[in-house]
């Protein structure tokens, strides 16, 4: 979790689970398999000079390492903070973003988890308002915490219902 003063107030920020790092890294590993296959194929096919296989392999390896490192930083940049009357969500390293959603404007709260996320025990809580540009998603919550967050948000949303 980074500590840039422009994006954090003194509230209690909650980082997301580090399991999300493993889940997202697995996706990168899975994506690397076809690349490895291509490199081997390039190596074995006689008319292609081996240099090309080297170049493709090197580019693949560099991007793999870069993504591996980036995922760690990116996941640690996610944090959320439930305040008395609104929810704060922050994300991003290069392009930073801080969303504040008043509870009274929440229309629905989604809890979703794909197969890889489920295998690692993380879920995403997504908050929707009437605006399409809100985009307040908290990925990488442990299912119990996600359910608790969802219920809390729904309850607070109801008590502050206003909106359109």
């Amino acid at each position, binding site marked *: 979790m980074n500590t840039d003063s*422009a*994006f954090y*107030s003194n509230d209690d920020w909650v980082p997301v689970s580090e399991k999300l790092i493993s889940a997202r890294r697995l996706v990168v590993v899975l994506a690397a398999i076809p690349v490895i296959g291509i490199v081997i194929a390039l190596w074995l096919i006689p008319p292609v000079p081996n240099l090309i296989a080297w170049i493709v392999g090197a580019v693949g390896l560099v991007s793999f390492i870069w993504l591996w490192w980036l995922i760690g930083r990116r996941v640690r940049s996610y944090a959320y903070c439930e305040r008395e*009357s*609104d929810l704060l969500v922050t994300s991003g390293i*290069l*392009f*930073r*973003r*801080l*969303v*504040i*959603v*008043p509870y*009274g*404007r929440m229309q629905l709260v989604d809890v979703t988890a794909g197969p890889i996320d489920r295998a690692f025990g993380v879920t995403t809580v997504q908050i929707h*308002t*009437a*605006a*399409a*540009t*809100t*985009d*307040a998603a908290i990925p990488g919550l442990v299912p119990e915490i996600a359910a608790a967050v969802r219920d809390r948000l729904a309850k607070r949303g109801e008590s*502050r219902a*206003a*909106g*359109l």
Partner: protein
Amino acid sequence: MITLGSGLTDSQGHRKLSPVSPLLSAASVLPAIIGFAFAISVPSGFNFTQYFPALRPFVAAVLVIGLASLALSILVALFQILGWRAFSFWVDQDGDLRVRSGVLIRNERRVQLSRIQAVDVVQPLIARIFSMAVLVVEVAGQKDSRVTFRFLSLTDATEIRQTLLNLAAGTKTESAETDSPILFRLPSRDLALGLLLRTSTVLLFSATISILIFSYLTEGWAGITFALVTGGVPFLIVIIEFITYYGFTVYDSPDGLRLRYGLLKTENRTVPEGRVQAIDFIEPLLWRRHSWTRVTINIAGVGSSSQGSSGKNKETLLLPVATRSLAETIVFRVLPNIDLTGIDWKVAPNRAVKRSPIQLRNLAMGWGPNSFAARRGRITRHLTVIPHARTQSVHMTQGPWERALNLASLHVDTTPGPVSVVALHLDADEVREALYGQVGRVYQGGGI
């Protein structure tokens, strides 16, 4: 049972469309049929004179195409008669509108009147000749959300519209609406001039002229086809928009603003009070001498997503061209409490010149007790305003270049539409302060 309009009814007391509608429908497809017949017969070298050897080829061609098209449109009319027989509509015991239609596949739709968004009376050219109209009922919902009644007599359509609006508003009393006061009528000259002076039009026209001059000087006429596109397309757009917004008139009515416009096809649109979410005053460079502005709005339920068709654009346009002061008067009619004067503007710091050298002098944000406003754009200026009570959420963003300059952007999120309220590249600390302040103001500033 509530009676709808004063037209024809069937044995069950259900309303029917006007009996001439099959003929009108057939007549309105006639030009397309003629065009099609022409397009398939003439280029293929069809021998027209084989049917009328005595006539000259041209007369024979007109006669053959005319007769064939007539026969086809009679066929269309026959199908339309079947459709007309199957079509009926009424208000049921629960106070919902029911529409029955379909010859082969019968279909009965139930329209919850409380979900009605707009009831519009539209007059396409062919209908206007016979003083008929099309009634369009817009219902909240994403897909297939409109019911079209093609054709009713104009008075009948107006009556039904009024009844449906009254039912939807929960008031079952009749209220006169014909003599709503006119707030604004756009002179055709201003509309034409405004469309011509738009930045994109002017740029494309000047590109065309420079291509023509260049072609003339170099005698390389290959650029001419390109000039046709750069000159022709904006010309066509100007013509189309002129026809669409011709005679743009704004009426004051109990349910909001009523807009009426169109040369070939009269559109009637209601901008309901209290459904407007955000406003954008757009001022292209060459409009400033007249202090003209174009006003677009976000309306709840009329989302113009990425595929935003031209129809959606029309629904989110409040004024095509008007002077600034008049535009503000009209906007105040649908959003009475917004603050446009006395805003304490927070302008972009001078160092933002490294991020956006052109826009810099018009980048600012500010707020009053009831609304938030943001300015951006230099050549085409935007002034966007959103009431605090309509704010959905707020977010700030900071890219790497902005971070190096200690700048940030503040976005105030509104419902989908053409207006996006964003204060770009302001001092990061000011933005942060405004962000937390703005979310606090969301719950205040009610009463809109």
